[in-house]
């Protein structure tokens, strides 16, 4: 049990894990849809290095191309006056 937590010392896991948690927390806290989408961008930027760190590069390419598509779909409902 003790040696499992030595992986936390790894800089990639620490920094990008903090990025994922901060992005998710900001997405929940914000009230404006545009600001929520920008915070979601922080979370996605933290999550993709985990996929690369595992060595699944094809999955990383596919996910990095598909993730902005969902944002574009969501932006179709965000209208201008709603701020």
């Amino acid at each position, binding site marked *: 049990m003790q040696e499992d937590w030595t992986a936390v010392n790894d800089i990639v896991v620490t920094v990008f894990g903090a990025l994922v948690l901060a992005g998710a927390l900001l997405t929940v806290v914000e009230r404006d849809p545009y600001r929520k989408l920008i915070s979601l961008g922080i979370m996605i930027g933290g999550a993709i290095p985990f996929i690369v760190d595992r060595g699944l590069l094809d*999955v990383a390419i596919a996910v990095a191309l598909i*993730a902005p598509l969902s944002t574009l*779909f969501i932006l179709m409902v965000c209208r201008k006056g709603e701020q």
Partner: protein
Amino acid sequence: MNPEFILGLVLLLGGTIASAFPVPRTYLNRLINLEIPAWGLLLLMLSYNEALALLTFGGVSALSVYIFIRVIQKKEASG
């Protein structure tokens, strides 16, 4: 218990609660909060090295977002 597993569990549980009770209670906020458990599930699948499941899930989640958007647009148009 690698870091992806713990991170995925936290995102899955927290995101589910957040999308069940969004702060301004609109469909759009619910849909944006629904992205958080989707990425949590993706990290959870990543901790088991399931490449094919990850690819399929990535495609299907974008498709389901599009379907939800069409549903929201229909509901707003009808009143």
